[in-house]
């Protein structure tokens, strides 16, 4: 099976500072891959480089096509969604308008299923339906995260990049978010590349994990294997051997 996303030798950075030094990574159809690593390991930059919002060089093939020199907007239209870290919502627009933006951004072939998909979103996140006339800026952090995810889903991407969905969320909401992710993959026939600091939670939903440190891949293995490797987690994920996550932010 050839992967949906195949990345080889990806480098990227800001200004003169290089952050990624030759990343190799692959995501298969219907697969969830967790990108793990401490703060500053390059997770966010990797996602940005893939969605074309940060300049990069190296080979990126998505659905068999090279993304070299493709603009961010075009990459997104090609079926690669990106839920950025923190506030990705349009705060001046209402919740409903945010949702509609996702719908109008989907490929023409899926227009027919739009109404059903919106209904599915509102069933998954009932609070969004309740708040649909409110400006998105009035939502709580967790609700905004749901909205950003919903909007990206409604654009019907084949691969969704999700950056730190648990950041700033209360532990309970965060657990919700991860369980939802596992469901979404099946319901929306998605592949997911998930960047997370919370290794334990993300490895529970992921098929495979890739560990980044200082802009390089230091480990890549099935999720269960990584979850069992305490030494690795201690070395690169800022976790003490007893399994407690250090609070780094």
């Amino acid at each position, binding site marked *: 099976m050839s992967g949906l996303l195949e990345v080889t030798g990806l480098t990227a950075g*800001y*200004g003169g500072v290089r952050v990624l030094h030759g990343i190799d990574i692959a995501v298969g159809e219907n697969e969830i891959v967790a990108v793990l690593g401490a703060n500053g390991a390059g997770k966010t930059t990797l996602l940005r480089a893939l969605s*074309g*919002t*940060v*300049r990069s060089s190296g080979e990126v093939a998505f659905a068999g096509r090279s993304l070299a020199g493709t*603009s*961010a*907007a075009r990459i997104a239209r090609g079926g690669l969604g990106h839920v950025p870290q923190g506030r990705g919502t349009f705060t001046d627009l209402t919740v409903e308008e945010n949702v509609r933006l996702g719908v109008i951004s989907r490929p023409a072939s899926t227009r027919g299923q739009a109404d059903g998909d919106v209904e599915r979103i509102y069933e998954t996140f009932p609070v969004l339906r309740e708040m649909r006339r409110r400006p998105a800026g009035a939502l709580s952090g967790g609700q905004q995260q749901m909205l950003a995810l919903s909007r990206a889903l409604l654009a019907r991407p084949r691969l969704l990049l999700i950056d730190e969905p648990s950041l700033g969320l209360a532990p309970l909401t965060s657990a919700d978010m991860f369980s939802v992710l596992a469901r979404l993959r099946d319901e929306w026939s998605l592949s997911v590349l998930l960047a997370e600091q919370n290794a334990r939670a993300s490895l529970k939903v992921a098929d495979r994990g890739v560990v980044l440190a200082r802009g390089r891949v230091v480990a890549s293995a099935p999720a269960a294997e990584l979850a069992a490797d305490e030494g690795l987690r201690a070395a690169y994920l800022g976790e003490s051997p007893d399994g407690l996550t250090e609070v780094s932010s």
Partner: protein
Amino acid sequence: MATSISGPATRTVAATPGSPRAAAPALDELRPLWRRPVTWAWTALFVVALVVPFLISDYDLFKATRVLTVAIAVAGLNLLIGRAGQISAGHGALYGLGAYTAMILVKELGWGWPLAVLAAVIVSGAAGWLIGLPALRVRGLNLGLLTIAIAAIFPLLLSRFEGITGGTIGLQLAGSPITPPGGLALTPEQFQFLLLVVVLAVVLVLLRNLTTGPLGRAVEALRVNPLMARSEGVDVNRLTLTMFGISSAVAGLGGALGGLVLASTVPDSYSMFFSLTLLSACVVGGSRTWAGSLVGAAFIVYLPDVISQHIGSTTGGQWSQLVYAVALLLTLFFLPAGVAGGAGRLVTRLTGGPRRRSKA
């Protein structure tokens, strides 16, 4: 140009640069003043300027004097745009305010010209401070907004308050009050030119010292990163307001001397278009180089003459205006440091530039 229209990514990508431009002059500043080529160039220029009046006709001198008065105003604008990072679309009005203040004091109250010029400087500075007060409470485009409004209503106010300003006819004197003191064998034009050379030199030195001293460093921090400046304890708004006040006062100085040399002020001279022309001079010359003020002033004073000679005077003004606009756009696209800034960099490159290992 072709590279920057490449795609929608420009917005995020272009947000980061800007700092390398600021780093370049710092190297030169490591050397002692007398060892910098810039110092020598300015000194040579100053010496030449002292000789020029005895070589060219009084008419040419009169034009050159006008360049110098405008250059003073443009230097004030350089301080604001190039250093404080704010824009004024109304410096023509402040220049005009200086001219009218000086003319009224000389003509109606019989003041001596030096005192009248001083008063004009104070009045323009105070006016600038007053305009800046509401506009500079928050950073943004408010100063541009308010100053273009000033530029638009200033000539109307001049025409309306006939009692003081002479209405649309303006104010005229039989001759310029700026004459050589007795015993000095100079024509008025020669004296005026020399006076303006000295005044401009003093203004440029003062502005330069202002921007390289402790205040200047605060201003530079302000321009590069207002948020950082604020966190380092710089009172951003007050500092910007001070800069705009000084900039306005300098524009008033240029206007006062310009008006008195010409011995005439009319509202039409200080229209919104004059204000925008000054803006053009500042940017085209190079808002971050003091030599730019001279280049820009020469550009806007001599261009209408050149164009009138070739096209005729009926549409000369409009062609000049079009050229200012095009020059302004081309400068913004291709030469963001302006003509003087670009030339300076070219010279630096040709002479190998200030060496990094200089012993300063």
